[in-house]
């Protein structure tokens, strides 16, 4: 693989974005790649927009993905997918889901939550709006949305083998929650 792969995982504070990017990095590293990732800490974690950039390849320099260069954007909240859409490469995949978290600006009436599906249609953004809420409900755990989506993204990252993905989940998830997370990953990968 000559070109570095660029992935942006985004959503809101508390959704498990850092955990998802940690699993992705571990899987990429296990597959023999150089890996870098960026995180956001501090004030933004208090319910703000959170993103993690992950890049892997033979040799990675910048830790940040450049606008127009993302191979995969994985949005754990549907409006947040639009915040990053200018980062998508021409061949890139935008993967998001039916999770909606209203920001405080919407709650307090100073802004309106946009019609995300309509905007995507109008802009001709090819997107995968996955029904993860239903799956999380079936699994009895709404904290696994991040891993379901990572499973879905894994199909678009063929450089990483299934075995390495599962080992990475095992490494990063606490033992108590391992089974449900492995199942979440499988369900996402089957979408």
């Amino acid at each position, binding site marked *: 693989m000559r070109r570095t792969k660029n992935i942006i995982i985004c959503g809101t504070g508390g959704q498990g974005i850092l955990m998802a990017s940690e699993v992705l990095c571990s899987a990429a590293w296990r597959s023999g790649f150089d890996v870098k990732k960026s995180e956001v800490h501090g004030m933004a974690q208090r319910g703000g927009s959170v993103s993690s950039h992950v890049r892997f390849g033979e040799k990675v320099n910048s830790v940040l993905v450049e606008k127009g260069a993302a191979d995969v954007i994985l949005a754990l909240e549907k409006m947040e997918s*639009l915040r990053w859409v200018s980062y998508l490469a021409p061949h890139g995949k935008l993967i998001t889901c039916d999770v909606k978290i209203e920001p405080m600006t919407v709650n307090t009436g100073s802004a309106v939550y946009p019609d995300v599906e309509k905007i995507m249609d109008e802009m001709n953004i090819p997107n995968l709006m996955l029904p993860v809420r239903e799956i999380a409900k079936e699994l009895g755990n709404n904290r696994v949305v991040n891993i379901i989506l990572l499973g879905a993204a894994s199909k678009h990252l063929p450089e990483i083998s299934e075995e390495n993905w599962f080992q990475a989940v095992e490494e990063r998830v606490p033992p108590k929650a391992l089974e449900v997370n492995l199942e979440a990953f499988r369900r996402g990968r089957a979408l």
Partner: protein
Amino acid sequence: MRKKLNEVDSGKLFLSGNEAIARGAWEKGVHFASSYPGTPSTEIMETIGEEYPEIDAQWAPNEKVGVEVIAGASFAGARVLSTMKHVGLNVAADPFFTLSYIGATGGIVIVSADDPGMHSSQNEQDNRLLGRAAKVVILEPSDSQEAKDFTALGYDISEEFDTPVLLRITTRICHSKSLVEAGPRMEVPVKGYTKDIAKRVPIPANARKMHSRVEARLKAIEEWGYSSPLNRIEMGDKSIGIITSGISYQYVKEVYPEASVLKLGLTNPLPWKLIGEFIDQVDSVMFVEEGEPYLEERIRSRFLVDGTGSELISVEGELNPELVRAGIKNGEELPLTFTGVELPGRPPALCPGCPHRGAFHILSKMKASSTGDIGCYTLGLMPPYNALETVVCMGASIGVLSGIEKAVGRSDMPKLVSAIGESTFVHSGITGLIDMVYNGSTGTVMIMDNSLTAMTGGQENPTTGKNLRGEPAPVLDLEKMVLACGVKYVRVVDPHDLPEMRRAFEEEFAREELSVIITRRPCIMQYKPKRITVAVHHPDKCVHCKLCVKLGCPAISWDAEKRIPVINETLCWPNCNLCVQVCPKDALSKDLEGVV
């Protein structure tokens, strides 16, 4: 079970810059560390606390004390570390500058984590300027491997040249992860304390000699820097030579891999001979640096080169590959498939269950406000509270409140309190309160005691009863402390008891004497609930007044069609019933849902 990192002595680790600095200190045999938390530096100390018990590490009440304590430990021959955010170095500047004159018996590395882009800060200061003013060595790593290596090398430089070393990193170094080669810890003995008055007492007669030593030291390090592995020339296309340091180097390599590059890891003193050789080999020079044009101004004042950087890339904000590409490649940008979309902002908010919400809710209801300080409660400025209107620096809420009264008098002063967290009060609010007592101010100070340094992710402090490693520690008694300062009226209020909170403000606003309200309720990060109760809405009783929504709780949103609140059960906090309290018609209740 994952091994603790002190049990790993080889192989690759995937570490953040902060974790790599902790690792570098540990491998180099560091004995002692003392710091105050501050984004983006906090995880260095947290990592030491969790992974490296061989380093004796502690939280200091503020950065100045942190540096003073490591100074003493260095005098006694220990290898020492102190970490802080960029503005923390302002607080520690007094010992930092003089420590430069005194030097290092045991190696001293001080980490300044600058925050360009202000992810979580009030300014963008570039502490290379402060490091240069203090005449210390400055090192700038560009990834986690270098963060580890430069930290370790910093101790060699510190002890060989008798100087403190400033490791200058920026947010993107702190909080990005990359692969690092692990090594074992080297054990070095603590040299022991020996009296050396000429070295450690900077009375003028001694300090003049110290200054001479500092100047000679800078010359010697400059010479050493010429062949040091910290700096390197990567010769490529000679038509363009880029001089860069820190994270900026990675962006240059990303967008202009064919350019010739001088990568500087040592940025004070500058290796002039190496820089001169580089400039001679290339046709034109450009500077790429995050923050101030520090290299550009210094190098251009030494060599007659036309190159610039600050005119091509803004000195404001954080760098990224797009900015560097456009700056050094004449406006070039990657083609975009989609343009950006205008979206509602998602600003940070007080957490569901946050103890500060009660106090700001009441201030807002009373059309009162606060002079603010640095912590989670700075978010009191946001709607729906709009109850905080000044911020200067750690501890300043008290001095600012006092100053407003001095200028306009109590009777003309709006309904203001100072809003300061307990950790910030201990950091540097106490002296402000002493000033208010001493100089006859009559305002109301609110100490928001949530028993945790919360904004930086939840660290212990002198009021929490635990030390950095979570072991029991004496508790600083805030009421006694306030009384000892000379304040006559102190009251403690649960900020989630809304009627009591209102009464406290009303009575203290009416009092024409200085008083302190301590709002006391633990941060939700401190509280592990056993029972899960969540708010439940009963639509039949709802009168659609939206008072619950106006609490600004992330767990409550408004269904505009049905005109009722929607409670997010995942976010709703068990140990909170503010929405139940504000509902005038009992349309909200807290029902037991289960037991964890």
